[in-house]
C-alpha cells in the first residue's frame, strides 16, 4: 500500500533504511534516464544524483507532496545542472509566448509553415544518432521539459510545480523543443 504524505515524511525524517532502499530503487532509474537523455552518464550522472539527494535531505520540509517524489527530485537535479552551467543559471522565459506563436501560426490560427510528413523518421541507428545530435541544439530548459513530458510522461502540473513555471511557459518550451528537433531532423534526413 502506498504510504500517505505524512507517513512518507516520517519515514524520510527517520531515514529508515528499508524505506530509503525502496525509494532509491524506485526513483534512481528515473533520474538516471533523465541524465541519460542529456548524455550525462557514468560517474558524472551518479555524482549529480548524489548531490540532489543531499539537497533533498537538507531541505526535507520543502517537500510538501504537491508533486511525486521522483518529479521533486528531478527538479532538484535539474537545478543542480543549471548551477553547473552558469549561462543557464536562471530559469527564464526565453521568448514571449505571443511572439513565438505569432511566427508559427497566422492570426487566424493556421500554420505559417506546415510541418512536413515524418515518414522518413524511422527507427534506425542513423536516426538515433541524428536525434542525439539534434538534442544538443536544445537549451537546458527545453531538454528538461521535453524529457520529463515525452519520455517520462510526467503530468504538466507536476512539471510546472517542480520547475516553477506556468503552463503557458511549459507549452512554449515544449513547442520550441519540438520545432527545433523537427527542423534539425528534417535537415539531416533530407540530405
Amino acid at each position, binding site marked *: 500500500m502506498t504510504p500517505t504524505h505524512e507517513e512518507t515524511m516520517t519515514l524520510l525524517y527517520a531515514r529508515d533504511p528499508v524505506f530509503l532502499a525502496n525509494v532509491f530503487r524506485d526513483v534512481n532509474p528515473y533520474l538516471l534516464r533523465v541524465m541519460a537523455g542529456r548524455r550525462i552518464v557514468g560517474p558524472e550522472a551518479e555524482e549529480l*544524483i548524489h548531490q540532489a539527494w543531499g539537497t533533498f535531505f537538507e531541505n526535507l520540509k520543502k517537500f510538501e507532496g504537491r508533486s511525486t517524489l521522483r518529479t521533486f527530485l528531478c527538479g532538484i537535479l535539474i537545478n543542480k545542472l543549471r548551477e553547473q552551467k552558469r549561462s543557464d543559471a536562471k530559469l527564464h522565459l526565453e521568448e514571449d509566448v505571443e511572439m513565438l506563436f505569432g511566427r508559427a501560426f497566422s492570426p487566424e490560427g493556421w500554420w505559417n509553415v506546415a510541418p512536413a510528413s515524418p515518414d522518413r523518421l524511422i527507427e534506425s541507428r542513423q536516426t538515433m544518432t541524428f536525434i542525439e545530435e539534434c538534442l544538443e541544439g536544445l537549451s537546458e530548459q527545453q531538454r528538461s521539459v521535453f524529457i520529463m513530458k515525452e519520455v517520462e510522461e510526467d503530468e504538466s502540473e507536476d512539471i510546472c510545480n517542480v520547475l516553477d513555471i506556468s503552463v503557458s511557459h511549459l507549452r512554449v518550451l515544449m513547442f520550441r523543443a519540438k520545432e527545433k*528537433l523537427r527542423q534539425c531532423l528534417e535537415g539531416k534526413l533530407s540530405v
Partner: protein
Amino acid sequence: MARSSLLFRRIWHDAYYAVSGKPGLNFAMLCRDVAEMIDLKTTPTTLVGKVRFKLHLSLCQACWNYSEFSKRIQELMKLLVEEKAAAQKNAEALNQDLLKTFSKSEN
C-alpha cells in the same frame, strides 16, 4: 502516404473550414489549439470536443503531420533514453552508495 489520400485530406480540410470555421459557427478548431493539445497531451473532455479534435486531425494534413511527428519522436526518444540508461552501470551500486550516506542505521 498515398498521394490520393493527401489530396483527399486537403480537399476536405478546405471544405470543412469553409463551412464550420465561419464566425458564428466556430466548430472547426484552430491549428494553434490543436498543436497545444498535442504538446501538452491533453484530450477534450466533452464528446463534442473530442469530435472537433478528431475531425480536425483527420482533415488537416499539417496537424496530422505534427501529431505523427510527436508520436514518433516520443517513441524514438524513449528508445534512446532506455538504450543510454542500460549502458550505465547497475543502478543498484548507486543505491547502495546512497544508502550508506543517507540511511541512519547504515551510518
